[in-house]
């Protein structure tokens, strides 16, 4: 199981508390994680990445294992600690006030 932490606004939209636990086939990548999120929580489609371009929204960041992976390829394999569920994949709203 992959562990995912959503920002508070998206947890409210999806009506979930705490972390998500998702089945994601190997190799675990950001794209596959977002695919799995959108499959289970269709109300989140378009909120993490753009519908048309599939690009991560500019004010959304991907962190894992204390690294900023936002600018890595969405098809790059994530660290083993994410794939094994030892560490969560963090989807974060950029700290931009508001």
């Amino acid at each position, binding site marked *: 199981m992959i562990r995912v932490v959503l*920002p*508070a*606004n*998206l947890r*409210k*939209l999806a009506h979930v508390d705490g972390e998500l636990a998702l089945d994601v086939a190997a190799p675990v990548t950001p794209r596959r994680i977002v695919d799995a999120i959108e499959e289970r929580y*269709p*109300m989140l*489609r*378009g*909120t*993490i990445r*753009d*519908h*048309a371009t599939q690009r991560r*929204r500019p*004010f*959304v960041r991907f962190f894992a294992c204390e690294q900023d992976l936002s600018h890595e390829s969405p098809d790059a394999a994530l660290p083993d600690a994410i794939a094994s569920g030892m560490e969560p994949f963090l989807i974060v*709203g*950029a700290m*931009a006030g*508001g």
Partner: protein
Amino acid sequence: MSGVRVLVGTRKGAFILTADGKRERWEVSGPHFAGFEIYHVKGSPADPDRLYASQTSSWFGQLIQRSDDGGKSWQTVGNEFAYQGVAGTHQWYDGTPHPWEFARVWHLEPSYTDPDVVYAGVEDAALFRSSDGGKSWHELPGLRGHGSGPHWQPGAGGMCLHTIIVDPGNPERIFIAISAAGAFRTDDGGKSWRPINRGLKSEGIPDPNAEVGHCVHRIAMHPSRPNVLFMQKHWDVMRSDDAGDTWREVSGNLPSDFGFPIDVHAHEPETIYVVPIKSDSEHFPPDGKLRVYRSRSGGNEWQALTKGLPQRDCYVNVLRDAMAVDTLDACGVYFGTTGGQVYVSADAGDSWAPIVRDLPAVLSVEVETLP
């Protein structure tokens, strides 16, 4: 007893204010969608319990919410707004070409007859339609394809399509307005459009009388007279008696003819309301006095309405979609401010009282008159 439901969109959520027909004691529900900008909430004339809300965020993009029970519960519906064909370019603020990019939905306009049909006015300017209750959205591309699109430019708030008025007797005729392109009309349900800006005069564009490029802030129409339109432009209050073919200025004795909202009394088609703002850079009432101005003659002669409104040290703004009227007798008038107040007048503007004083900045106000 009849009542009203006031739908308020703010910078940090939506609020629903309800009262009976006296409009004196109010219940406040919300915030709904707390933390999100709610640009607009509007109910279906065909089914008042069907509501649509535009929920938007710089972080998480656009969402559309729908309620089938008058706002007690909501479901997320479709949020894919894809321009049809090649999106092309419009003008940026400096006049250079800029790609058409979807940013948000400014205005939702449900059909008079079918609760599942709703129009969406978006930034960058385009008109979308849903016929399945908001699940899917399709652009009416004839508007952007009209030919003048590459010359449109954004107003200070973005290049938004903010006004959608469907002729209640002829759903093939729709009026829309864009900041800062101007007003347009279709007579064939959105297939083809033409600009309706003759008579508008704007400083700040190379040709003050140009066919497009005017910063129209809001248009209002009384449903019984679909050929008569009233417009609050960036500067100037305007009137058309021929469905927008020509316009004439009716600013008359207003202390400033800059402003955002304009609306029409529910039972008196020649009675109209505006909220004058000092200038394009000073977005607050002249002299620190919050005054609604009413004309009972369709413009030119205006009367200040002040009873119950702050008459000193008031520096709020009233945005373009933040005024509405109910259809009770006497007509109720409502408006919300960027300071978070929502005011009601249950006597057509003669006197005012705050329903709420401390909401987040108000972006939009709509009202439903309930049986």
